């Protein structure tokens, strides 16, 4: 078991970064925490500070204003950290990739460990993505 496996062996704490999104992925992420899906039973918890997080969830296209802030958050994050790009916008920029304020998909700005596509991805897809990620490491 390597150091990274050791770090992600137990409860994953998640920090959620909503970029220039349409809110759909944000509410589906919140949906994962509510009674129907209840991610907290796996010890997965949304935290208020990036300094407490094991996973950085990024959704939405990243515009020029968000870009520096995302970089800053990634710099502040305790390493190792898993970065998950959620939704079509997080993965590629989606429908907003041609926009005049678009500053590149997430993986052009920070390294990404997992992609969860969909517009928006269903909570089941988000859970499946996180479980695969936790299992892979």
């Amino acid at each position: 078991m390597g150091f990274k496996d050791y770090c992600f062996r137990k409860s994953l704490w998640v920090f959620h970064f909503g970029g220039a999104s349409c809110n759909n992925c944000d509410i589906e992420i919140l949906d994962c925490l509510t009674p129907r899906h209840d991610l907290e039973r796996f010890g997965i918890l949304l935290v208020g500070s990036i300094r407490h997080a094991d996973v950085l969830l990024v959704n939405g296209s990243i515009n020029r204003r968000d870009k520096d802030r995302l970089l800053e958050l990634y710099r502040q994050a305790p390493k190792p950290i898993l970065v998950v790009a959620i939704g079509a916008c997080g993965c590629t920029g989606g429908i907003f990739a041609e926009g005049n304020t678009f500053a590149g998909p997430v993986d052009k700005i920070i390294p990404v460990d997992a992609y969860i596509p969909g517009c928006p991805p269903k909570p089941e897809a988000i859970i499946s993505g996180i479980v695969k990620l936790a299992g892979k490491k």
Partner: protein
Amino acid sequence: MSRKTLIPIGPYHPLQEEPELFKLYCDGEIVRDIKWETGYNHRGIEKLSESKSYDQVFFLVERICGICSTSHPFAFANAVEEIVGVEITDRSKYIRSVIGELERIHSHLLWVGLAGHFLGYNTVFMWAWKYREPILDLFEMITGNRNSYAMFKVGGVRRDIEKSKIPAIRKEMGVIRKKLDLLTGAVMDDPVIHARTKGVGILTRQDVIDYAAVGPTARASGVDIDVRRDDPYAAYPLVNWKVITAEAGDVFAKAEVRLLEMYESASIIEQCLDALEKLEEGNIALKINEIPAGIGTGRAEAPRGEVFHFVVSDGSNSPARHKIRAPSYTNIATFKKSCIGQTIADATISLAAVDPCYCCTERMAAAYDNSSGEKILNANELIEISMKRTNEIRKSEAGHE
């Protein structure tokens, strides 16, 4: 003048599901002034819309806001149909209204949950979001997706609500009423919620008129406006329903208006289903080959208030200009009235009470440096540059003399 403490909330704050920055200027515990910054969510949708064909714009405007993802296509469809000058078929009108009202129920439940969360009442949050799930299941059954339904097109809707699906929707409306009874009872009778929301964040009738607030924010202050009744569209003139208003204008009144509106929505849906059962299946969209040159305006009552779309067509395949005004754009400005003079704890729920939606609201005034393409200048910085230049010229002029 006493010293004021600046308390920033955001832009990436665990309390908010969207990025926005509030600056609360506080004197002790009391909020004396409030400023907010947006732009973290700007995607340039109006400009993007000009590069898409009319069919594609529906998918784009749907993604302005994920929560009210029917209201924008609704208003856009109304605008384009005004340009074309067609009246859509009755069946598509009823289907549009069913989708619109299902969305209102899920959006209001979402708000009730978030409001409970902001009050530190997580039970309400969990309940409301649990009751919201069956509505999303209905969406999945009717449209194939939980959010962003892609149901609208110019001249009608993309998918029919078949007769075989109607009993399931009807059954769920019965169930949701019972759940709403429970939720409304819990919220309306709880002494803690009364203490936290009554008399908090009051917007008077005059404030609402001054700030041109819309939707439940306005209706909770006794301003009786609703686009569904005032400028009828889709099937709303064909069914019986009433506009819910309250007088107090505080957070409690806003909650009351939203909770009672959900009952009205359930009743509208049931009446639409009755009509759909009587009408023949099929015939859900008119064939429209060409959008003529012209100007169209479309309005729709989103869960948060009036959505306004203005479309200029030059007869080509895509809009020549597309202007969007979302309800939160005017509602957010009322923070200046509702939050000042409150304690910080009450300011939070006052901010949440208008159900602000920043992804709808993003506007930007900025300039980019052409050479690097990086630097963003806002209005203040532009003024500074201008002043600096004036000073330089003044100095050089003085040097010549």
